[in-house]
């Protein structure tokens, strides 16, 4: 893939080809540890030859008025697991977390979850209604909303079913598939506190019911306390308009709580005296327990983490020596306080370095700078948040919840890394 594209102009050949060089270098290294200052057998033609991109001209400024990632990154895309759902319109796909770093998820590869497909709704046609137990039932246009005071905050949005396929055992082989129903973006919009203040909530208004413009409507009930605490409606994500698949032009942001509450294409906020008990909060997004009863209103996403590299899609490609182990940690209860990493399946742990200042209900990046001895590893990570909550093991969760609760699996993940550096999803005991 890094080879010169075939239709590009070729530089005149002045020596051995790059492939020859790599073959020779590979033979010379012979799989042994080669420290800095090791000698190459032959000069690297990428250095000694004038490359086409160093001689001819590149693309002009208007070649892509809105840029996509360079084609070398074509594999860094959302992926679907077809057998999970009956149909791709009411379905989900997965963020390529294994291939990203830092904390912000680019919108273009942030996972999608639709219940009746992603709809096209323009800013001009957009309307938001607030009604119910309010002094003044109101209708807003998009322009109206842009006249209200705005805030900017970073939060993660995690589907309640993230890792839900792993309850019964290690099932999907890749961090993208086991943990990719999450994204972390910087949102700009208006708090529900500000919006509801415009309508004037009556004293008996103790819940809100939020629903979308799409055919599913995806209605959910949220206690007023949460609505006034930190919920907001967002117009911008990562500095630009929301993408269609994330609810353009307006979605709800419910920090720390399950993604299903983050209603897209938000149409109406009803102020209520109780929960509606909609389909999404009764038949779905309730957690079936071993006694046959189910927990409801399990809104908060508890502390969780995963190593994104190495992982099955991102093996250790080099031999023994220095390497970076990295991953993501988050908690719906607040900030991440600490992340520990184990390389032996949970027997011994070391505290990782946090790569970013932890944010409230936002993803934190962690790094463990490690010198690999070439031996197999059982790589795990364990997040702790500021409330003292420690990410549990699969055994701990299963002992309480059994195997059929589908949602809220925040258990510790194990990647087995073999002596070749290849990684796979396993369970250990």
């Amino acid at each position, binding site marked *: 893939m890094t080879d010169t594209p075939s239709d590009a102009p070729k530089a005149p050949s002045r020596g051995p080809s790059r492939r020859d060089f790599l073959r020779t270098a590979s033979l010379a290294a012979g799989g042994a540890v080669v420290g800095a200052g090791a000698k190459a057998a032959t000069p690297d033609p990428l250095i000694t030859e004038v490359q086409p991109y160093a001689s001819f001209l590149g693309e002009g400024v208007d070649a892509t008025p809105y840029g996509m990632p360079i084609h070398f990154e074509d594999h860094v895309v959302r992926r679907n697991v077809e057998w999970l759902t009956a*149909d791709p319109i009411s379905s989900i796909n997965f963020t390529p977390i294994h291939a990203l770093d830092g904390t912000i998820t680019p919108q273009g590869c942030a996972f999608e979850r639709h219940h009746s497909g992603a709809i096209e709704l323009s800013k001009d046609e957009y309307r938001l209604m607030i009604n119910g137990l309010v002094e*003044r039932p109101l209708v807003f246009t998009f322009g109206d909303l842009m006249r*209200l005071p705005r805030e900017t905050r970073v939060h993660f949005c995690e589907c309640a079913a993230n890792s839900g396929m792993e309850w019964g055992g290690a099932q999907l082989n890749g961090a993208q598939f086991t943990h990719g129903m999450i994204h972390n973006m910087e949102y700009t919009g208006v708090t529900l506190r500000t919006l509801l203040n415009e309508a004037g909530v009556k004293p008996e208004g103790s819940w809100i019911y939020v629903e979308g413009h799409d055919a599913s409507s995806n209605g959910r009930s949220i206690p007023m306390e949460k609505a006034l605490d930190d919920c907001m409606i967002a117009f911008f994500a990562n500095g630009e308009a929301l993408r269609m698949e994330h609810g353009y032009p307006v979605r709800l942001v419910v920090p720390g709580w399950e993604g299903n509450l983050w209603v897209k294409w938000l149409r109406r906020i009803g102020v209520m005296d109780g929960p509606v008990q909609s389909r999404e909060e009764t038949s779905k997004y309730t957690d079936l327990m071993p*006694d046959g009863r*189910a927990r409801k209103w*399990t809104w908060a996403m508890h502390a969780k983490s995963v190593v994104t590299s190495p992982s099955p899609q991102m093996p250790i*490609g*080099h031999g023994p020596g220095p390497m970076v182990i990295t991953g993501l940690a988050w908690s719906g209860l607040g900030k991440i306080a600490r992340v520990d990493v184990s390389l032996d399946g949970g027997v011994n742990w070391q505290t990782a370095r946090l790569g970013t200042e932890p944010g409230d209900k936002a993803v934190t990046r962690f790094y463990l700078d490690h010198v690999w001895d070439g031996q197999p590893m059982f790589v795990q990570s364990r997040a702790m948040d500021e409330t003292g909550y420690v990410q549990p093991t699969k055994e701990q969760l299963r002992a309480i919840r059994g195997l059929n609760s589908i949602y809220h699996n925040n258990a510790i993940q194990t990647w087995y890394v073999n002596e070749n550096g290849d990684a796979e999803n396993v369970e*250990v005991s």
Partner: protein
Amino acid sequence: MSKCRKLLASTALVTLIAGPALAEPLGIGRLALPEEIAAWDVAVMPDGRGLPEGRGNVLDGEDHWIDQCAVCHGDFAEGAGAWPAIVGGRGSLQDERPVKTVESYWPYLSTVWDYINRSMPFGAAQTLETDEVYAITAYILYSAGLVDDDFELSHENFTEVRLPNEGGFYIDDRAKAEFPEFTQEPCMSDCGAPVSISARATDIDVTPEFPVIRFTYSDGSATATVDPVADVEEAAAAPEAEAQAEDVQLASLDPALVAEGEAAWRQCRTCHQIGEGARNGTGPALNGVLDHSAALADGFRYSPAFTEAAENGLVWDEASLDAFLENPAQFIPRNRMSFRGVRSADERAALIAYLASHSE
């Protein structure tokens, strides 16, 4: 942090949180009209608040069910393919594979009514009349064994019906049931015996193909960035091939009409695929429909009504497609296509042109 900076920080925080909210309303937006509220505020509560007046019985419900619902949920609400079963599963919630249905799991009938009213049928939401929603709900209750076949559901008797699992839910108790265990200071060393693999995802082998990312290293240990790359290259090549194929097919058709048809196709694509690589889904793939016998898609399980029509010589030409698309249930009674039809003749013509653009 110095005292002064702390003070500044906390002041900033107060401003951030309390500033806009404590203010008087800014007077943005306008009052919602009663008609607008009636159109959008259709939520129904478990105590029946929000239910519109209306009624529907089991027998009418069965007819609507066959027309509108059975294609995905089965003739007896038992589910079809990967689509959900609506009844059954009572007593299965502690099983290894629980079956969660309206009958076995859903706590409130209001949820059923509300969801059908808002979001069903899939791909044609908000097209059912109020009485039809009552009738379909009555049919579900009958299929669940909760009412007799002479039952009529209405806004008047709605709250008398209770679902079996109403008492099967309790409010999130994780803080009490889990936090004491999950807030213990974690062990850091010698936390147990050495571990070995007890299960591996590769044994189950249900992960889609994915490219593995590899880099080039100075010690020559790996040389490719992405491997395998086949799926990426295929994906990049496909649109071009499709575009070329379409160019050929469109030669004799009005491109503007075909484009209109493609836009109108949105209402069909929930169930039907068309074009390169189209497969049967809820409905059959629709390549090569025009000027061919009906019910031709390979491997699709057509309704008896549809198969019979084909056996009686139904061929899809512009006239027959137009009549079918205008009112599918009338043109082939008791067929399973859950679709009301296209009222606009222009839109039907556009759709037919679009179908023609995918026919040889």
